[in-house]
């Protein structure tokens, strides 16, 4: 190896002087100690993906149990007709919280937990690329979940159903704070989802083991990558919807008020624009875990890897086009219904491709009927049935008949429990030995499976029939003798059998930690890298990061398994600077391009999340001075987080090839930080697009109100457009200078000019909007919402550009440490584009007054 495979490297040779500016290593510690989890209460400062991943899994599982108990309360209430166990208001709270917790606080965090824990282990990295972001996301989720759950304490639990339809959830029909608990708590928890999306995208694309090209990735990585992109685009519509609804409740802005040109259907569009992809976001990672486990128990590689991956990518796109089929009963144009119907049945095609890949894999060998395998077979059975009732519901006449009945309840539980809960239990049985180093019981596992499988089918198959007999969902009780009694009783019995199965799992979990047999190396004879070490894997995951040549490395690369795992050859065995490090790769080819420095334990994620939680909770309690304090704490936490010396500018030997040296935290567009920034920008565009959609939707369906709305001041809209172009140009220059290592003084000057442009742009937008009264029409309110969104982007850009200028002014940057400016450039360009589009929208919307 003569030269780095990475050829247009802008960083010239070693600059060891730069490292002296970054005294962040812990030279008194050994390699093992650098990676050790801090003891005692300091564990809360840990940022390790394995600590954070397990926290997500445990917290998610606790929420699963809480929501499960709520489900049992529902079933108890419906056990007999005319039951008075729960009054109807409590009943509404219970089913709403059941759905809300299961969807937002269990399913998504659980899959995040698996992703956070498994990704580095499966791709040969020592940690995720943004460990602090993972820790921050977890705390946001935890605090958001606590806010939602605390509503029970105030007897203000949300009661409007998990999809919070307006106008029921507006302040006119839902007084008190119950809907606010939902909107604020869930939005805080969703921060964890979008940060996880950025984390997953950057980790999978940028930190794979040497030689692991995209097509050599374990199949689960593809599923998670597509899921992460779907979260990045799918969650923003709900976040925007929640913010608009909260603004209507809190400030009285008329987004959904039909008398001022709003539209309740706007909420449904935004909600299902999220809600439909959400089903796939939950299903895909579970399917990916099945695709990982199935080949292990068959002993053959997955059949049709390429077909499965392209089916997953196609599903990712497809899921965003089909939300309207949740709205068949809302009065969509008749002309469109049959086409939606046809399209909905075609979802079965990419799903079918995957299921056939699984079934074909099963036929390749004789599967070992272990407990995870049983759960996989249970998944195939239940999910296929749920898919079939989905095809039934795609037929419009049937849909209108079964709408809002227990048939739908049965369908969605077959899809979600079949598509997520069963694979998840299989995955827990499969990976728990990796977490704890001990095996769970096969006997108890089989009991758990059969109880869950039989209980589930008893409970939910009956609901198809109850639904076809006309029982609507969400009714607190029903009269006797209209054919629902026995079916409901059977469903309740089934639900308790299902719960017994889960109880067996919990008992076994606690039992196995004490008396389960110790796990040997690779207990399932798996092929993927996470089983390279004997569980529990040491804190650094890989003593040296091995080169990968195969999709099934443990099966095909004997040099990995013929010696103790710690002696396997690879990159970064020698740690030069007593830092946490891993290898960074080219996103496509997997060739190593950089050494990626990782953070050590820190309190800043916790402080930032705590500040944010105070901000959200105080807003809920209308204590706005406290909100401001919370915001300030979050800002201080964030500043401490990012005020760290740059690691770029030095080159270190990797131990790969013949003395391959690579730059540390390379200043390049392929950097993990740049990829992460692009991921963030994707989310920001999706948020912006959701607002644009809201405006376009209202303009389209309520044109007379759009006509009545005052147009923003033309001259300032034009100035805003011009300033957006200037901001774009300045951001472009920021990026050029960072890559070409122009002088620091020039960089500082550009930073400051950018700041001036941002302030001018913000003022110009404000003056443009002044003639528009946000309370006059919903259309005007959306205009202000767009202005507020752009203002938020500008505020972040301003903070960032001043931060970068200050860093240069205080001598914290040397030449060649251009990453912060490269990232700022990308963010500034995106801000400029969105500001420009907003300015153009202001030029054409409304009527001049």
């Amino acid at each position, binding site marked *: 190896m003569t030269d780095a495979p990475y050829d247009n490297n802008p960083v010239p040779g070693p600059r060891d002087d730069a490292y002296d500016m970054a005294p962040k290593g812990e030279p008194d510690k050994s390699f093992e100690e650098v990676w050790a989890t801090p003891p005692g209460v300091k564990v809360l400062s840990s940022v390790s993906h394995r600590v954070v991943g397990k926290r997500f899994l445990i917290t998610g599982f606790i929420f699963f149990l809480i929501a499960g108990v709520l489900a049992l309360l529902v079933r108890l209430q419906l056990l007999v007709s005319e039951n008075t166990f729960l009054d109807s208001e409590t009943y509404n709270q219970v089913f709403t919280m059941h759905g809300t917790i299961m969807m937002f606080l269990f399913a998504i965090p659980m899959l995040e937990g698996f992703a956070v824990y498994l990704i580095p282990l499966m791709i040969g990295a020592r940690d995720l690329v943004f460990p602090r972001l993972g820790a921050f996301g977890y705390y946001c989720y935890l605090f958001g979940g606590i806010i939602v759950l605390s509503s029970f304490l105030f007897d203000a639990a949300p009661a409007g159903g998990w999809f919070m339809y307006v106008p029921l959830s507006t302040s006119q029909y839902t007084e008190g704070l119950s809907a606010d608990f939902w909107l604020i708590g869930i939005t805080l928890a969703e921060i964890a989802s979008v940060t996880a999306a950025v984390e997953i995208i950057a980790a999978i694309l940028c930190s794979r083991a040497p030689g692991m*090209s*995209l*097509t050599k990735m374990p199949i689960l990585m593809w599923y998670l990558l597509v899921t992460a*992109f779907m979260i990045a*685009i799918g969650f923003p519509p709900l976040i925007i919807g929640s913010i608009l609804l909260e603004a209507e409740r809190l400030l009285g802005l008329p987004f959904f008020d039909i008398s001022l040109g709003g539209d309740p259907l706007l909420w449904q*569009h935004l909600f299902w624009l999220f809600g439909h992809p959400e089903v796939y976001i939950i299903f895909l990672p579970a399917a990916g875990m099945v695709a990982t486990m199935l080949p292990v128990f068959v002993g053959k590689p997955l059949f049709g*890897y*390429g*077909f499965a*991956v*392209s*089916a997953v*990518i*196609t599903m990712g*796109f*497809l899921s*965003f*086009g089909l939300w*309207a089929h949740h709205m068949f009963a809302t009065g*969509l*144009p*008749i*002309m*469109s219904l049959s*086409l*939606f119907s*046809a*399209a909905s049945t*075609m979802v079965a095609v*990419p799903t079918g491709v995957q299921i056939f890949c699984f079934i074909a894999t099963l036929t390749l060998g004789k599967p070992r009927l272990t407990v995870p395998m049983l759960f996989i077979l249970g998944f195939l059975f239940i999910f296929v049935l749920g898919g079939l009732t989905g095809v039934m519901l795609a037929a419009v006449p049937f849909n209108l008949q079964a709408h809002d009945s227990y048939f739908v309840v049965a369908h969605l539980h077959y899809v979600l429990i079949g598509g997520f809960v069963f694979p998840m239990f299989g995955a827990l049985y499969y990976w728990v030995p990796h977490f704890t180093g001990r095996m769970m019981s096969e006997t108890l596992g089989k009991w758990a499976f059969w109880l869950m499988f039989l209980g589930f089918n008893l409970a939910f198959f009956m609901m198809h029939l109850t639904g076809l007999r006309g029982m609507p969902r969400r009714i607190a009780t029903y009269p006797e003798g209209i054919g629902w009694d026995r079916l409901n009783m059977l469903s309740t019995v089934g639900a308790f059998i299902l719960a017994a199965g889960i109880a067996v799992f919990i008992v076994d979990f606690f039992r196995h930690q004490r008396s389960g047999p110790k796990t040997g190396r690779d207990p399932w004879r798996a092929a993927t890298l996470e089983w390279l070490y004997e569980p529990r894997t040491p804190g650094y995951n890989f003593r040296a990061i091995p080169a990968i*040549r195969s999709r099934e490395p443990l099966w095909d690369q004997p040099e990995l398994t013929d010696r103790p795992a710690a002696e396997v050859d690879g990159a970064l065995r020698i740690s030069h600077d007593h830092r946490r490090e891993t290898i960074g790769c080219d*996103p*496509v080819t997997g060739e190593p391009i950089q050494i990626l420095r990782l953070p050590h334990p820190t309190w800043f994620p916790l402080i930032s999340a705590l500040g944010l939680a105070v901000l959200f909770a105080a807003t809920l309690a209308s204590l706005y001075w406290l909100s401001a304090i919370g915001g300030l704490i979050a800002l201080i936490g964030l500043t401490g987080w990012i005020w760290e010396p740059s690691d770029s500018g030095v080159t270190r030997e990797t131990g790969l090839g013949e003395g391959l040296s690579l730059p540390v935290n390379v200043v390049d567009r392929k950097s993990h930080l740049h990829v992460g920034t*692009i991921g963030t920008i*994707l989310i920001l565009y999706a948020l912006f*697009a959701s607002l644009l*959609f809201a405006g*376009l*939707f209202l303009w*389209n*369906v309520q*044109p007379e109100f759009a006509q009545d709305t005052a147009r923003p001041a033309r001259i300032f809209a034009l100035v805003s457009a011009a300033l957006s172009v200037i901001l774009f140009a300045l951001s472009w220059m920021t990026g050029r200078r960072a890559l070409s290592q122009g002088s620091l003084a020039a960089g500082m000057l550009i930073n400051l000019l950018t700041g001036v442009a941002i302030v001018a742009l913000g003022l110009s937008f404000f003056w443009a909007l002044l003639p528009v009264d946000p309370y006059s029409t919903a259309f005007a309110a959306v205009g202000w919402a767009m202005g507020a969104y752009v203002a938020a982007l500008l505020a972040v850009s301003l903070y960032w550009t001043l931060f970068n200028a200050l860093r240069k002014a205080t001598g914290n940057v040397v030449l060649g440490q251009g990453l912060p400016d490269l990232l700022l450039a990308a963010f500034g360009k995106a801000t400029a584009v969105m500001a420009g589009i907003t300015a153009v929208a202001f030029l054409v919307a409304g009527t001049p007054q």
Partner: protein
Amino acid sequence: MDPYTPFCGTPPLPTELLTRWTFDPVLIAGLIAAFAIGMRYTIERKRFTGAWALVAFLFISPLCAASMALFSARVAQHILLTLVAAPLLAAALPKLRLPPMPVAVVFAVLFWFWHAPAPYQATLESDLTYWAMHLSLFGSATLMFAAFRATPEQSIPAAALTGAQLTLFAVVLTLAPTPWHSWHMLTTIPYELGPLADQQLAGAMMWVAGGLLFLAVIGKLALTFLQEADVPPAKSRP
């Protein structure tokens, strides 16, 4: 002054529709010339012939005349042109290394522009505008799919933008409470379809049929990428 007759003729009645072929000499000459030039430069003669035959069909067959009466027929023509003929032609061209995002933005702008009421009306008032519309839509779509093909792994944001903007436009069209195009106010009546229903059909076709065709292209690109990347490199290690 004679009233202008649109390129595809006056809106046909259902009974005469199947007799309304557009044998315009300039069109035929243009198609023959395009075929001759294309066959010289294409790397995939079958695909090129397929794309060419589809384009010829879209403008010569009665679909062209039908699009004078029904907006939904016009949309069907555009869907087939931009989402079937264009990717097929792109797959028949030598690989073009274009930046995906700017090309996708150009396509998006053209797509929204040409389907807005005023420009749409203009295409029915001048042959030149009519062809400016079709050539710019077809050309930008072809370049976009060529860019996706050349670097599929870098085209994901651009593909997402394209999927999103096509869907958004289709949603707006489907849910619009009034017909947009005054041209079609009376032309749809002989087909027992109100102008609004015609427009809703057009929107839903764009949303669903267009969406599925776009997905098929994405799926094919993904599969090709995976299969090409899967071929072990020549310098494989021991």
